[in-house]
């Protein structure tokens, strides 16, 4: 795999274009428990989808299937791009370097420093200008002064900012966010909202799960509500997500 050239412009937040994702009749069972029951969704490149639902609705399972960390019990996942250089691909040949994930956990090594964590993943993604990229990434998330500190010494909010920086390091075309605002303070939330605005502007496809109302949802172009492993409501690609988001706000 060739190194992925990138520049320090705002477009570098995201690879040349977003990556679409299609879930076809996804079912996922854990023993007798059905976490997902025939979920079908077509998400176009560049969409910002808010995935809503209570705890246990199946949001995390759907995101893990999208991240290719988990195989569905039934159904299939495929990816598509508007980019001519990136043809439609199946689950088996999905370009891993196009997907970024911020999960429930930080996906960071506590016994490595912030810079070492980013260095490790930059090398694994075969990125060029690793030192510069890591430095810029740390500066961007406000952790430049703590670059040499072990992650275990960080507060929850600092860890979350670094986790987001790690997920964005390779400028993914599809960003999967599972309750990404957890642990972020006011300043962190503002930084994160600005980050999402940039990513959306750059054409990145974003699928973000949440069960709580936060400012970053204002950028959503579509809202999908899950309940008991099924799609309950979907504002659609051209629809207005605000009523569904307003319902979430009312519940909160």
């Amino acid at each position, binding site marked *: 795999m060739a190194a992925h050239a990138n520049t320090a412009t705002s477009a570098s937040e995201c690879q040349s274009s977003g990556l679409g994702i299609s879930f076809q009749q996804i079912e996922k069972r854990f023993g007798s428990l059905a976490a997902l029951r025939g979920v079908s969704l077509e998400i176009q490149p560049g969409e910002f989808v808010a995935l809503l639902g209570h705890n246990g609705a199946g949001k995390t399972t759907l995101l893990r299937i999208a991240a290719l*960390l988990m195989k569905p019990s039934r159904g299939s996942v495929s990816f598509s791009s508007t980019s001519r250089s990136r043809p439609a691909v199946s689950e088996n040949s999905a370009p891993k370097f196009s997907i970024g994930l911020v999960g429930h956990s930080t996906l960071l090594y506590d016994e490595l420093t912030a810079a070492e964590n980013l260095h490790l993943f930059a090398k694994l993604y075969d990125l060029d200008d690793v030192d510069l990229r890591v430095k810029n990434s740390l500066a961007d998330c406000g952790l430049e002064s703590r670059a040499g500190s072990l992650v275990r010494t960080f507060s929850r909010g600092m860890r979350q900012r670094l986790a987001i920086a790690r997920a964005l390091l390779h400028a993914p075309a599809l960003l999967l966010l599972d309750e990404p605002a957890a642990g972020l303070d006011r300043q962190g939330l503002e930084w994160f909202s600005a980050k999402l605005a940039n990513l959306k502007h750059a054409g990145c496809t974003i699928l973000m799960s949440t069960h709580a109302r936060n400012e970053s949802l204002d950028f959503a172009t579509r809202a999908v509500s899950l309940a008991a492993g099924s799609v309950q409501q979907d504002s659609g690609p051209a629809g207005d997500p605000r009523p569904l988001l307003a319902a979430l706000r009312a519940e909160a």
Partner: protein
Amino acid sequence: MSTVRAAGILLGKELRLEFRSRELLSATIIFALVVVVLFSFAFDPTAAESRRYGPGLLWIAFLFAGSLMLNPSFSREQINETLDALRMAPISPFAIVLGKMLANFIFMSVAELILVPVFAVLYNISLAGIVWRLVLVLVLGTIGLTVTGTVFSAVSAHARMRELLLPLLLLPILTPLLIASVESTASLFQEQPALDRTWVAFLAGFDIVFLTASWLLCDYLLEE
């Protein structure tokens, strides 16, 4: 990125983590030393008895210490779900397993480097003239132990009783390796040391078979 290069990057990460925490290596060395020292108290190791029981005792110590060391190999990747981050990286799944195998091999080799001279002193065994042949046996045996142990560490990582599960899975599988390692070592501890080529070939075969199997099955090993 090539599998070897990715494994090298991950090996660097493993060494750095161990250098910081010193959890695995110190526990492994201390455990193995305790086993060897306790056995030296249990019977009076004359030269003849040492030649008879020494090789088995030495490899039992390695095996138990190895199963202790290999247990956290994958389970500690679950603390912050870092294995997910590795699985999402555009690298071969075998690179993840290979990086851990190499790290475990290095940790185990360091433990053996400390343990073997202590064993030789306590059990009146002269290593003069057999060092390189013994190194060959130790390397082949340790490759088998770490390859198999790393694979089963990945298998047991998701289990609830993984501390118990790994030795239960690993030790029976390693029985042929134990027999071959003990026989090879015993042939070197005789008054007229001679390397038993049959058992050495068996050790090499064991290593190749399990390394190939882990390469073929690594996709399933890391799956949820």
